[in-house]
């Protein structure tokens, strides 16, 4: 278990932890944008920059992204030194130039003392901060329907060839993890639309409410979910459980599986 010093505080973390986790455990506040505990660390937004050094290092410390830097024994971490703050400020400044109208970015800018972007403002403002949370969530699903396309200023997240993504299952995880609400989707008349693709929803066999896409049901089945458990929505499954419990309390013998189908 490595022991580090973060802003003067000694902290011991489990092996394999990141500098970000160690710093947070030590009570430091580090802004992050692309970090998510359930996803692979990426180090893309560069907001989580810290300065590290080790005993024996000479000269200046190294500026690294804390979210994907391993917490090594003996590391000395500074989370708010002058260099860190200045570098982080540039990152936020650039982000504000890209997304001038995005509330989350505006808030970050304010927190970093930036009123206006010092760089040329994006002529086509977007709410996408390119944090890659959506693509990594999709990868985590094992679906990988969307990806980062192009480079430089025109970089964006999109399905292949900007066409409705054939692999998408319509689970909405991408839209849910997006920190700015940039990923639009809609649901009406038993259809769900996202990334330009229209999904026919599966209706609950109890109440008729459209509750998941057929592709989602297929995904869940492939991962061991039982067909019968996907036929009803959660509310109707609870009703079914209540009926089973009442039958049991009346002394009836109920096979749980039989009751569930």
């Amino acid at each position, binding site marked *: 278990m490595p022991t580090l010093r973060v802003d003067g505080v000694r902290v011991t973390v489990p092996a394999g932890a990141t500098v970000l986790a160690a710093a947070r455990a030590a009570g430091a506040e580090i802004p992050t944008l692309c970090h*998510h*505990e*359930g*996803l692979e660390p990426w180090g893309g937004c560069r907001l989580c920059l810290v300065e590290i050094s080790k005993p024996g290092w000479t000269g200046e410390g190294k500026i690294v992204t804390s979210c994907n830097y391993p917490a090594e024994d003996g590391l000395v971490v500074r989370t708010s030194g002058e260099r860190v703050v200045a570098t982080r400020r540039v990152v936020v400044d650039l982000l504000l130039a890209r997304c001038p109208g995005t509330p989350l970015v505006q808030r970050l800018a304010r927190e970093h003392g930036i009123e206006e972007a010092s760089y040329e403002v994006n002529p086509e403002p977007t709410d996408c901060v390119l944090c890659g949370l959506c693509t990594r*969530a999709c990868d*985590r*699903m*094992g679906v990988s329907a969307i990806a980062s396309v192009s480079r430089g200023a025109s970089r964006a997240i999109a399905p292949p060839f900007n066409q409705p993504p054939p692999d998408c299952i319509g*689970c*909405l*995880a991408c839209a*849910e*993890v997006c920190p700015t609400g940039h990923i639009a989707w809609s649901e009406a008349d038993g259809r769900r639309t996202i990334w330009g693709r229209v999904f026919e929803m599966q209706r609950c066999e109890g109440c008729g409410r459209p*509750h*998941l896409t057929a592709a*989602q*049901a297929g*995904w*869940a089945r492939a*991962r*061991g*979910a*039982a067909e*019968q*458990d*996907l036929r*009803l*929505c*959660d*509310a*109707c*499954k*609870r*009703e*079914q*459980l*209540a*009926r089973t*419990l*009442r039958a*049991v*309390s009346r002394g009836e013998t109920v096979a749980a599986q039989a009751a*569930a189908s």
Partner: protein
Amino acid sequence: MAIVLRVVTERCNGCGNCEMACAFVHAQGTRPAQPRIQVLGRHASPGPGTPVLCLQCDEPACLEVCPSQALSRDETTGAIRLNEARCIRCRSCVAACPFGNVAWDAARHVVVKCDLCGGDPQCARFCPTGALLSSRTGILTCP
């Protein structure tokens, strides 16, 4: 030893104290949470009801399908616990639970499920009729 939470359906008078206790104990700030326990089958309120809540299955379907290891067994209480920070909100767990006891809170955009209150289920504590009984020993006699 895991916590055992027993439901004695015929004792429920439908008062809804359990839902209330749950909503308050899981509240974020001042807003009560979506309760993890629900009293169903109340035709009149109050009136006899059936409390339903997570059964903390031995082989949990929710945990099986979760792609993100956001659900895990709490070794001390035996509860299947959700780590919100790991959850990617795919709601596969909601779809997979055979009993409907993993739900989606559309207001807070989080999955909600019973966590046995970390070992002291407040629903049982506030149940006036003994329809909900919790035990630390795993041995539960009906008082």
